């Protein structure tokens, strides 16, 4: 444990540190880390070897479990990166070497020539039109072709063409320069050479991601020989609206609609025949997603998933899995599978698999999708070597301690799949976590190298008649497939005040947004309507375009013709088109009345409140305190530590108790952390930057008021105490956590134990708690291995539904199997039975279960039965959620602002979550999430001032009678009736613009910016 647990952070001298961070790899992790850091006061160099940022996520069609369009949620982040003045995006570059130490590294980059000047290129695409060379489209997994000079993907950042030098006629043999000739901006430059760049940074974050497993390495999959066997990544592109088949679900051989598709799981994962024995962690879920999406394309489709346990372990995953299971025409088959042959005439593929354990079945499919794993490559190993960062046997970055974000080298952090296979939210979380460590390391250099984004001064439009521009988005085919966009455009043209209309393939792509800003300037638009998706995610992006064009960002209105039109009226294009027209008409009517609004700056309370002092709470508290911010840590128990107090080791063998004790000491020693135990939140008010919390503390319930700028919810979870399997009735029945405690206390006792049965999914994945508790499978394996250590002869039966030992935990599962732990799969409808029988005057604990491979009832007399019980949300969650006004999900865990891209944020600004309060997870995951929550919190605490919303209450003094109803109804105490003049006065920093006052005012003396009475009446009249 050389470099773990934040110990490296204090000794580094402040002098000579550099307030800049290099992020290597610009996938979603790299992007998130960059944004957090840039928003926390650091200069960021975001380096990617490819021509554009976005990584693998940009190739995905939709994301599970929300089916959010991948690019739709990602592209706003692209634009945030592109427009943030503190992020330098360096594409086509790789690290050549690195010198120096934590706080002060000198990184040498090698940047290959792009042959296009990024600053000059407008991404107009003319060069590609004229380029005579067709090449395979890498973005589309080579299922399509494009030109040798091309734009990598429609929403590319940087929005600039790139030349493939391996195929370019000029670079190969100086034969053609047509692109140079047709480029009006003289952006194409074949004189570019490979370039060495030296960059000084204080820290490096590694986020190089993964490469997909190449199934051609294993002949049994018939790939790429069989044309209708595709990889899952290829299938993503096939599904995608911007993919090779324009979003139509076709198979490659004959471009016909497949009627029957099979997914083969674990291709290149959990496979001892190749080196990848680990589980790739995401394939089960993306396969389910692909099934659901395919069924949306064609509801008649037959879909078969051939798997070896479905690992739906994440938040909301089990429900998603259930949804797929309950979809007619979808079969999940638990079996090994092999590809038998291709039917020559049809090019269909015949698979062979087992049913019911014994029976062999051959079945023909139109299309077979290989759910390929996530792998590390030689490139990753080389990168690790250059940076002297340790990797594991599979080439993934290894962290020496509890914190996965740390690498073996001080000052260098890792996130995303480079650490281990993981899904998008985990990657985003880890990215924020890594960012917080860099921020912690460099906190005294915060703000030294940054600059503010500059906008042109605002044009005063108040005296102009409305000149509305309407931009209507196809969203690939998401909208255009249902809504007749040209018809809507024609309609919009006829509306009063509209002087410009246009349609965009993606209004949110960087080129569209740039073009929008230009159009605003050129055509003198003073109101903008974007008719696309929901304003809840995309409004800020377009508002930024307005600012860039020199008009007030509030002169903007969106018509939601995707979530609230094309996606919910899929079956009737005509009606959806009419509705879209209505929505555009309403938006235009309102837009014409919009007025500029201004944000007022206000001061911040530079302190954080952390609720809950488990590992997550303590880590987030320390991460903030280590950066110089006061932290109040509030714990309801007498002691710090949370549920971790009951956990002895991690499955990897790390000593939890030692770590925990050290952590508790650090918390107590830190002068900036004020610990309140036996304390509850009794009142919570305020807003981002300035919260006020009242806690009642100690036996006397003494009330203390705390002022803080950010809030982190880390209230943990509880162990489920079951009422079944004789738990609580027979002392031999334990929960797995109790078993672990017993093992630690009294391991001798188990030497005489002959037979032990573990039952999984107790209280999880049932109708009451339809979620997976994520950790129980690994916990059971951990206990099983420990027991085998104590008594190798012990018979251990592990009764499970799906073993969910994802990522590298798979190795322990295999180890347990090797050590002859007996794994028996049971069906939820045929649960094991535990009973006490008396035989020969002896009370015997008997477990019976149906063995699916043998099809027989199996009877085991157990000395001990261990129940892997669910993690259940804290019973306090409900009350806390009401106090903080933050939502819980259906399972009573806290609900994040966005499943994928805002995994630790609440929708309420300034409140974050981490640890088990969010969902069940492992300790290392909690630590990462705690760091992430701190990182998000720091993005607020790093600001000089906060800005109040412009959309707040305004008063008309003349109309006001001072009756005081507004003062009484205001939830934020933001209004007071001034006694002398008898008029209501609004405190603008406190006002949140809810409008309760305005609707209560009988005199219409109060109104709300952006949702004024007049604007709303106009909307009603435009209905």
């Amino acid at each position, binding site marked *: 444990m050389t470099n773990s647990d934040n110990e490296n952070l204090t000794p580094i001298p402040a002098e000579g540190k550099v307030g800049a961070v290099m992020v290597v790899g610009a996938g979603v992790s790299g992007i998130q880390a960059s944004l957090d850091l840039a928003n926390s006061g650091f200069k960021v160099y975001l380096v990617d070897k490819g021509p554009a940022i976005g990584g693998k996520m940009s190739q995905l069609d939709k994301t599970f479990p*929300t*089916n*959010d369009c991948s690019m739709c949620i990602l592209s706003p982040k692209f634009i945030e990166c592109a427009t943030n003045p503190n992020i330098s995006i360096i594409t086509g570059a790789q690290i050549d070497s690195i010198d120096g130490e934590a706080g002060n590294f000198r990184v040498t980059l090698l940047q290959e020539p792009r042959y296009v000047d990024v600053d000059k290129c407008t991404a107009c695409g003319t060069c590609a039109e004229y380029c005579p060379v067709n090449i395979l489209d890498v973005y589309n997994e080579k299922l399509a072709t494009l030109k040798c000079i091309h734009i990598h993907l429609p929403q590319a950042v940087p929005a600039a063409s790139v030349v493939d030098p391996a195929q370019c006629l000029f670079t190969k043999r100086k034969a053609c320069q047509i692109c140079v000739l047709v480029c009006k901006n003289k952006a194409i430059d074949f004189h570019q050479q490979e370039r060495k760049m030296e960059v000084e940074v204080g820290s490096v974050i590694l986020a190089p991601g993964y490469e997909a497993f190449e199934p051609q390495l294993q002949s049994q999959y018939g790939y790429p020989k069989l044309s209708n066997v595709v990889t899952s990544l290829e299938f993503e592109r096939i599904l995608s609206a911007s993919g090779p088949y324009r979003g139509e679900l076709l198979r490659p051989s004959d471009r016909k609609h497949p009627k029957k598709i099979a997914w083969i799981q674990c291709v290149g994962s959990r496979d001892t025949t190749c080196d990848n024995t680990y589980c790739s962690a995401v394939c089960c879920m993306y396969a389910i997603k692909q099934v659901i999406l395919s069924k*949306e394309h064609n509801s008649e489709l037959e879909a078969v998933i051939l798997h070896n346990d479905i690992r739906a372990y994440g938040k909301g995953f089990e429900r998603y899995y259930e949804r797929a299971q309950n979809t007619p025409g979808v079969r999940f088959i638990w079996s090994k599978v092999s590809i038998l042959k291709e039917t020559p005439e049809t090019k269909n593929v015949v698979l062979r698999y087992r049913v019911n354990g014994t029976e062999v079945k051959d079945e023909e499919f139109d299309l077979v999708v290989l759910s390929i794993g996530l792998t590390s490559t030689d490139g990753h190993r080389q990168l690790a070597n250059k940076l002297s960062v340790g990797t594991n046997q599979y080439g993934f970055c290894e962290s020496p301690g509890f914190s996965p974000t740390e690498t073996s080298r001080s000052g260098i952090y890792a996130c995303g799949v480079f650490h281990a296979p993981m899904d998008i939210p985990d990657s985003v979380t880890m990215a924020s976590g890594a960012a917080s460590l860099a921020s912690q390391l460099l906190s005294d250099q915060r703000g030294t190298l940054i600059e503010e984004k500059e906008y042109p001064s605002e044009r005063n439009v108040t005296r102009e008649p409305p000149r509305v521009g309407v931009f209507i988005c196809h969203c690939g085919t998401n909208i255009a497939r249902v809504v007749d966009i040209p018809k809507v455009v024609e309609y919009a043209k006829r509306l009063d005040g509209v002087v410009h209309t246009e349609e965009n393939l993606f209004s949110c792509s960087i080129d569209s947004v740039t073009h929008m800003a230009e159009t605003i300037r050129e055509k003198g638009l003073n109101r903008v309507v974007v008719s696309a998706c*929901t*304003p*809840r995610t995309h409004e800020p992006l377009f508002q930024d375009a307005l600012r860039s064009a020199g008009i007030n960002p509030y002169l903007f209105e969106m018509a*939601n013709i*995707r*979530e*609230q*039109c094309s*996606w*919910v*009226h*899929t*079956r*009737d294009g005509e*009606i*959806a088109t*009419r*509705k879209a027209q*209505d*929505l555009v008409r*309403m938006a235009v009517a309102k837009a014409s009345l919009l007025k500029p609004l201004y944000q007022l700056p206000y001061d911040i309370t530079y302190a954080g409140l952390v609720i809950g002092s488990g590992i997550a709470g303590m880590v987030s508290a320390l991460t903030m305190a280590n950066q110089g911010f006061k932290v109040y840590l509030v714990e309801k128990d007498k002691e710090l530590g949370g549920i971790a107090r009951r956990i002895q080791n991690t499955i990897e063998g790390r000593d939890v108790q030692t770590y925990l004790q050290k952590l508790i000491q650090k918390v107590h020693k830190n002068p900036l952390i004020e610990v309140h135990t036996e304390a509850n939140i009794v009142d919570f*008010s305020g807003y981002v930057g300035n919260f006020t919390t009242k806690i009642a503390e100690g036996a006397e319930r003494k009330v203390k008021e705390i002022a803080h700028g950010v809030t982190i919810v880390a209230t943990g979870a509880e162990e489920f105490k079951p009422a079944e399997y004789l738990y609580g009735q027979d002392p031999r029945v334990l929960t797995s956590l109790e078993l672990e405690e017993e093992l630690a206390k009294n391991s001798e006792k188990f030497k005489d134990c002959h037979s032990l049965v573990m039952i999984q999914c107790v209280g999880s994945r049932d109708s009451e708690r339809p979620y997976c508790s994520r950790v129980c499978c690994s916990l059971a394996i951990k206990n099983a291995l420990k027991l085998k250590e104590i008594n190798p002869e012990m018979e251990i039966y592990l009764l499970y539904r799906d073993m969910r030992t994802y990522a590298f935990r798979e190795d322990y599962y295999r180890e347990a199997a090797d050590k002859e732990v007996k794994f028996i799969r049971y069906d939820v409808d045929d649960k094991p039975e535990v009973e006490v029988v008396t035989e020969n005057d002896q009370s015997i604990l008997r477990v019976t279960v149906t063995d699916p491979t043998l099809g027989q009832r199996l009877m085991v007399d157990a000395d001990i039965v261990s129940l892997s019980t669910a993690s259940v949300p804290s019973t306090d969650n409900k009350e806390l*959620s*009401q106090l903080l*006004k933050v*939502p819980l*999900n*259906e399972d009573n865990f806290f*609900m994040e602002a966005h499943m994928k891209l805002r995994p630790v944020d609440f*929708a*309420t600004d300034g409140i974050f979550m981490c640890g088990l309060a969010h969902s069940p997870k492992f300790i290392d995951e909690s630590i990462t999430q705690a760091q992430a929550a701190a990182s998000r919190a720091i993005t607020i605490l790093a600001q000089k001032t906060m800005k109040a919303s412009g*959309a707040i209450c305004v008063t008309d003094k003349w109309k006001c009678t001072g009756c005081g109803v507004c003062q009484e*109804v205001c*939830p*934020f105490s933001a209004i007071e009736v001034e006694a002398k003049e008898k008029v209501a006065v609004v405190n603008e920093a406190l006002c*949140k*613009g*809810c*409008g*309760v006052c*305005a*609707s*209560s005012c009988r005199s219409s003396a109060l109104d*709300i910016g952006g*949702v004024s*009475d007049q604007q*709303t*009446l106009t*909307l*009603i*009249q435009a*209905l």
Partner: protein
Amino acid sequence: MIVESKDWKPKIVAFLCNWCSYAGADLAGTSRIQYPPTVRVIRVPCSGRINPFFILASLQHGVDGVLISGCHPGECHYLTGNYSARRKFVLLKSLLEHTGLEEGRIQFSWVSASEGVKFAKVIAEVTEKVKALGPAKKLVKSKT
């Protein structure tokens, strides 16, 4: 008696609070849950923002139904906006029905950000109820 064409589709205005119900409507969208195309949404920050006049103006404008939906009690993004709204609306609804407005023309619901399915159900049910009532006639502004 006005004979209604069989495929008459009511026009319903839904005032949705930004944080819960509008998000719920978005979730219905991302989940591709289909519901009747009868609704036009007006996004407001909070159900508490909805001035009684908005409802009356909608009726006067001739919409066949008005739906107001906010966060569940205790979950208001603005703490108590929905509580204030609840008091206001129950009185308004009662008063309007006192004057003979059909029960069902104005409806209120709580839909959270996670209730995409519920949102779709609410729309379906409101649509059904309003359909059963037929086109709005009361409080509709007549053209002289």
